[in-house]
């Protein structure tokens, strides 16, 4: 054990009646990337918040390079050398300022840094930081003009300008595309080689396989497993995190029913190759592809959010050309959108009101709402999906991320549909919630056609009967999920784009 390591000993934290952390012992060595895994509620975020000064531990000690460390505020933690990049990228950058000001922000707010701003010096300093991070950007550019990945890199560069002893990244790839994630990984490799201790929190197996030197699993507020000998035991880590093995799900492919929706000669963009597709009842189809491959456009035309350039659709034999979302819903075509916080959750509403929003006409007579009917429906959904809550009157914000996602999926499972489209339904949920949601989707699929859009190949293999690959706004592969030739799928995913090798590596 080295002297300059970060050591946590016997950390406990109690919130009300909940023992969130029950004695965490952990050592984080410089020059090493430690991946922290844990289901929602295992205590990961609380541990991070103690390290970065948001919460204070009830008991236990932290030492940083031999010195005791107990920050009482985030700025104190940063000054001591513990820097955190949070999941939500925009917490780390100020969109309306230029890159230089973002990189120099902590310098600007530091006491005694002078009243007037020397712009030339300011930019030169910023360029130095950017160069050290091999960040090839024009520092006078405004951050809001950057893509997500660049913003994330600016946030990390800003963090690195402190020369941290410990860098914490909380699910940094959740909003990045595969190529962008690769850039981030290369950067992390360099930081590790420069001697920083890195704590990396993620649910994504592909990220973990790529980046981890060492895996630490948490479960119920304690460290339940540490894996540090190569080759890393990923199965063991998942088992330690869940308390049972991550058995490969048996995808038992049922007999597909009659076609529900037929698409013929659809082209999504001017010039993209037209495709035809039948989706059948009792069939779960995963559509996979890179960011920008046309998955979203495809979901949009089904739900009336966009119109195909050419081609036609028919639903149960009748022409289907929705212009509005209401028309789609009335025709029994539902879309459970991705990014629940911005696209789905109504924060001011409780669970029951969140569930019934699209179907209020079914819970009202002459426009007057029937609360009892709404609550009965909500209670069914809560029981069906195993949503952990006090009652259907709980504020949606009081639920964990995984349970909020269950409510959002439950919203669209609560009424029968002809076609259900789920866009990234496993975004930001732990493996347990992912299994629950997946089971429920499968279990209810017999009367409808189901389409799941996923970027992660693991998820596609786990949930679907049939995997469709999209690239360049058209369908390039259609596979039965039964001994799939993965290499071939991945070649198709990569399409004609140049970064082929990168992606194959990431997707697995």
């Amino acid at each position, binding site marked *: 054990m080295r002297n300059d390591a970060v050591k946590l000993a016997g950390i406990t934290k109690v919130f009300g009646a909940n023992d969130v952390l029950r004695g965490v012992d952990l050592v984080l060595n410089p020059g090493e990337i430690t991946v922290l895994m844990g289901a929602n509620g295992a205590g990961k975020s609380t541990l991070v918040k103690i390290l970065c000064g948001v919460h204070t531990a009830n008991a236990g000690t932290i030492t940083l390079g031999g010195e005791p460390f107990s920050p009482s505020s985030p700025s104190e933690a940063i000054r001591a050398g513990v820097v955190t990049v949070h999941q939500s990228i925009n917490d780390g950058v100020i969109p309306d300022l230029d890159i230089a000001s973002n990189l120099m922000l902590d310098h600007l707010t530091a006491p005694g840094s002078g009243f007037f701003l020397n712009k030339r010096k300011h930019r030169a300093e910023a360029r130095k930081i950017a160069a050290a991070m091999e960040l090839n950007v024009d520092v006078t550019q405004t951050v809001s003009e950057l893509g997500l990945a660049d913003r994330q890199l600016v946030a990390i560069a800003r963090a690195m300008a402190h020369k941290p002893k410990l860098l914490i990244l909380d699910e940094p790839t959740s909003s990045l595309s595969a190529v962008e994630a690769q850039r981030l990984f290369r950067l992390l490799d360099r930081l590790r080689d420069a001697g920083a201790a890195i704590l990396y929190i993620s649910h994504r197996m592909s990220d973990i396989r790529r980046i981890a030197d060492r895996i630490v699993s948490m479960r119920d507020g304690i460290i339940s497993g540490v894996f540090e000998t190569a080759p890393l035991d990923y199965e063991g880590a998942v088992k330690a995190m869940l*308390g049972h093995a991550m058995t490969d799900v048996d995808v038992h492919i049922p007999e597909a029913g009659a076609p529900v929706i037929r698409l013929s000669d659809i082209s999504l963009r001017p010039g993209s190759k037209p495709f035809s597709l039948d989706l059948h009842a009792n069939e779960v189809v995963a559509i996979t592809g890179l960011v920008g491959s046309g998955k979203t456009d495809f979901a949009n035309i089904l739900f009336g959010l966009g119109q195909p350039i050419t081609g036609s659709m028919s639903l149960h034999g009748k022409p289907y050309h929705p212009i509005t979302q*209401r028309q789609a819903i009335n025709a029994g075509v539902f879309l459970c959108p991705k990014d629940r916080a911005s696209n789905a959750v109504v924060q001011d509403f409780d669970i029951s009101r969140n569930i019934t929003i699209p179907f209020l006409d079914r819970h009202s007579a002459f426009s007057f709402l029937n609360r009892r009917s709404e609550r009965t429906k909500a209670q069914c959904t809560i029981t069906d999906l195993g949503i952990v809550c*006090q009652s259907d009157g709980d504020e949606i914000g009081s639920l964990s991320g995984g349970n909020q996602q269950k409510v959002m999926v439950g919203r669209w499972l609560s009424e029968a549909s002809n076609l259900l489209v789920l866009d990234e339904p496993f975004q930001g949920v732990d493996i347990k919630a992912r299994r629950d949601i997946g089971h429920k989707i499968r279990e209810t699929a017999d009367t409808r056609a189901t389409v799941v859009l996923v970027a992660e190949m693991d998820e596609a293999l786990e949930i679907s009967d049939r995997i469709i690959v999209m690239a360049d706004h058209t369908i390039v592969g259609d596979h039965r999920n039964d001994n799939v030739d993965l290499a071939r799928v991945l070649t198709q995913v990569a399409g004609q784009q140049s970064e082929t090798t990168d992606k194959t590596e990431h997707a697995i």
Partner: protein
Amino acid sequence: MQSETSNDTLSDTALHVKPKLTVTEFAIRYGFIALTLGLVLFFSIFAEGFMGPYSAVFIFQSVAITGILALGVTVTLVVDGFDLSIGSVATTSLMLSSYVLVVWELSAVTAVGMCLAMGAVVGLINGLLIVKMRVPDLLATLGMMFLLVGLQRIPTQGRSIATGMTLPDGRVAEGTFSKAFLALGRHRFDFFIDNLIPVSVIILLVVGLLVWGFMELTRHGRVMYAIGSNQRAASLAGANVNRYKVLAYMISGVLASVGGILLAARLGRGDIASGNNLLLDSVAAALIGFAVLGAAKPNAFGTIIGALFIGILLQGLTMMNAPYYTQDFVKGAVLVVALVFTFALSKRGGAH
């Protein structure tokens, strides 16, 4: 393959445990109503003549017009908008009804009808500016406010309207405010005591009940609250967001014009200088309403309580001989306290 942990918590689901009310939660929920009742008690003891049917009716009457306007603002606040033009819609309605009656010499029904239509059209234009032209709500309605303040002065060259006035073209206006129209402002209904309750108070209560019922009990109200909380989510759940927003501004415009009609009927002339305080007073009432019952969101019941609270406070202070010029200070102080109630103490504050 349910794990143990989730099964434990599931059994709670069926029980519907009512969360226990802590002192803070109790204060947030009932604090404002307790404060209102306390105020009534205080003035009943210390202000002679405060307790009594006439005094109570006077309070209601003093807040009736502001209250009706405030209900309109509430509707726009629900869809996460804001209508700054209500005050000028009300004064335009005051001037329009006077012009119709005195200059054009038309009937009371025509005057009322034209005012309501004017309110609806202004609301429609506000709504379209906001949803179609993408002008931010505050700016669109601010522009409309200026436009109307100017417009209502043009036909009379900036003068008030009264019977016998000389028009720009040299004619003398011969029309009068008809009895039927004046009754809207001056008639009182019997309620245990003869000639007790003015028409405006009845209209406030009816409008309050309608807005409350619409927002709380119908699916349209629910969708409007959903739009206010997360517009994109509401839209992806099939709500026609633009149509509901335009509707909200139209409701606001019509209610403001109702306020203007009542003001005209009470004054009996088209007074160019009236209604200066209407906008600020009604916005204050709607915002104070956030604090009532810990709603932390715009709501019709809260708005009416908010309007009454200001009315009670001013009436009581006036009876205790507080000078008139302290009134705005008192209103401002109440608003600040109410906003602290809403944002610092309630769950809203914690979320950010």
